[in-house]
């Protein structure tokens, strides 16, 4: 790709140019006159907003050109570990655009939107069945808010029992960064439990840490190394005996659908990332959806209102005195929940099981293709993703970051890199079930070529990318001195 000048929309602006002329209002502007009475004067601006002035064609070309610089799962392979960048079926989009869903308002009377409420009710039940939990809230906007809501429920549970000294949340060193962050935001102190040489939680260390101050253990299973925590039943016993709760981070659910359930493993609270496992489109930043499922003893603490059935009518129940309250306006990201519901109904129980079987098969296939050329820190059957180490290439002076940049030259989105942090020069690869064998083979071929380049012509990799619209960006400068505002100069 040639480097082409791409001016900002503001730089294309010329005074007086318009993309669309709105017709004159046929209503008198009585409200405008009153604006000064409605808002304090310091919040009213005198000058016109400096919006860009371009023609409709310029506008269309500008954003069309920008869109061609994007990489999405519809344009190419996207093996970003722990993000489950699977194909998002277009049927989901058709359903989300049905007028009965697209043109309703959250303030509409319940009797007018029973269909939408039924979808939410059925989705919550499906997710409860899939995870083995007793009730599900659809409110949380995405994974991290789900974690926070789940921890707030655990906190409310302990406080209701008068156990206010439970201040610690145990988190493995391989956990997603959001886990300790959510624990901190929910008012707990995160404590790290070690990973042992198997890549699994060190049970002895967990036993030492569990005690009267334990509020919960947060765990991803399979964990971020792509390994199934097979001691989970014993871990659950350790935590439950100490009086704590088990929290399941559902980021890696794509590995277990229809095969095992967090509820059966002993977890008390679960969040799911519908935008990952259940095909909500999330390449451009979402929105996500992070429903939370709980076991029976935590139901009183669910965010309110809770959808209940009364005489064949679905209605919102606000009378929940022990609820942690509302965590999001309206009722969650309804559009994404609708897509997840469509996906679940399209796939069916058997289909969802196939999803996980194929996701695990694809990951193991790719892992074995790449194993001879990279270091494989945990040489065992992986789940839906695996981690490689670029240690061998680092010795030749080529870092994992260099190899990730080189992948861009071949039109691939790089894997997650430098995470989990307990693996040196880490690459975390999640192919997902929706990729064909030919795609995996083609990707493996490129990875093998890059591994060879790292030794034979390291400069090619260290100077990469060569063929993208922009070369290597100064990420350090961008983080140290971010420019967040366009300055007309």
């Amino acid at each position, binding site marked *: 790709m040639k480097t082409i000048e791409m001016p900002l929309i503001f730089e294309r602006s010329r005074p007086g140019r318009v993309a669309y002329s709105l017709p004159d209002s046929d209503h008198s502007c009585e409200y405008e006159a009153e604006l000064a009475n409605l808002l304090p004067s310091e919040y009213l601006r005198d000058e016109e907003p400096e919006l860009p002035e371009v023609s409709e064609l310029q506008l269309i070309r500008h954003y069309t050109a920008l869109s061609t610089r994007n990489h999405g799962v519809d344009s190419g392979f996207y093996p970003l570990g722990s993000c489950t960048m699977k194909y998002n079926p277009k049927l989901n989009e058709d359903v989300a655009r049905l007028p009965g869903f697209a043109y309703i308002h959250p303030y509409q009377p319940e009797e007018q939107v029973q269909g939408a409420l039924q979808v939410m009710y059925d989705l919550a039940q499906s997710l409860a069945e899939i995870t083995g939990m007793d009730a599900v809230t659809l409110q949380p906007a995405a994974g991290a808010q789900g974690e926070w809501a789940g921890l707030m429920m655990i906190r409310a549970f302990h406080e209701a029992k008068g156990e206010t000294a439970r201040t610690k949340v145990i988190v493995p060193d391989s956990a997603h960064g959001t886990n300790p962050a959510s624990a901190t935001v929910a008012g707990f102190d995160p404590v790290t439990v070690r990973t042992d040489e198997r890549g699994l939680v060190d049970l002895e260390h967990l036993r030492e840490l569990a005690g009267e101050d334990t509020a919960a253990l947060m765990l991803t299973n399979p964990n971020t190394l792509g390994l199934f925590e097979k001691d989970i039943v014993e871990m659950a016993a350790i935590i439950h005996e100490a009086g704590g709760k088990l929290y399941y981070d559902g980021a890696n659910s794509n590995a277990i659908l229809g095969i095992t359930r967090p509820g059966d493993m002993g977890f008390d609270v679960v969040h799911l990332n519908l935008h990952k496992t259940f095909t909500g489109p999330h390449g451009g930043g979402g929105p996500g959806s992070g429903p939370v499922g709980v076991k029976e003893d935590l139901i009183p603490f669910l965010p309110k209102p809770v959808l209940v059935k009364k005489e064949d009518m679905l209605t919102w129940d606000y009378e929940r005195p022990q609820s942690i309250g509302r965590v999001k306006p309206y009722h969650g990201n309804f559009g994404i929940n609708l897509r997840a519901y469509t996906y679940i109904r399209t796939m069916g129980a058997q289909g969802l099981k196939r999803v996980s079987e194929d996701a695990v098969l694809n990951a193991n296939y790719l892992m074995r293709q790449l194993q001879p050329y990279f270091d494989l820190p945990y040489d065992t059957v992986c789940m839906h993703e695996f981690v490689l180490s670029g240690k061998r290439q680092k010795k030749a002076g080529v870092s994992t970051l260099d190899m990730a940049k080189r992948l861009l030259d071949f039109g691939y989105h790089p894997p997650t890199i*430098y995470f989990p942090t307990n693996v040196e020069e880490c690459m975390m690869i999640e192919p997902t079930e929706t990729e064909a064998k030919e795609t995996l083979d083609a990707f493996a071929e490129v990875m093998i070529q890059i591994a060879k380049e790292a030794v034979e012509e390291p400069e090619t990799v260290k100077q990469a990318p060569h063929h993208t619209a922009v070369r290597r960006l100064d990420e*350090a400068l961008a*983080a140290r001195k971010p420019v967040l505002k366009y300055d007309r100069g």
Partner: protein
Amino acid sequence: MNLPKDLKYSEEHEWVKTEGEKVRIGITDFAQSELGDIVFVELPEVGDEIEADEPFGSVESVKTVSELYAPLSGKVVEVNEELDDSPEFVNESPYDKAWMIVVEPSNEEEIDELMSADEYEEMVSED
């Protein structure tokens, strides 16, 4: 790898320099080169107590965020405020301009338990 002989080193890649009754603490050349370009340093405040092996702050690089583990226990008496605006000092000058905190140790024996430059070098070169 630059490892001044007059410093002591911790397993978590901090260096410790004894200055009379106090110690100066920062991260090693090895740590900064592993982390890559540092973009943010979070430090405690003067007067805070730090506890050996517990986090006392964090450094953020373009790659990752790492906690800083206290090599010993004590009271923070000075903090390098310059790192707020110039986190790049950690990469450019880890033993000098990028000192992080000065501490009054509460247990002098903890200093003796730290590694020498040779011991630290041996630790990080193990594969």
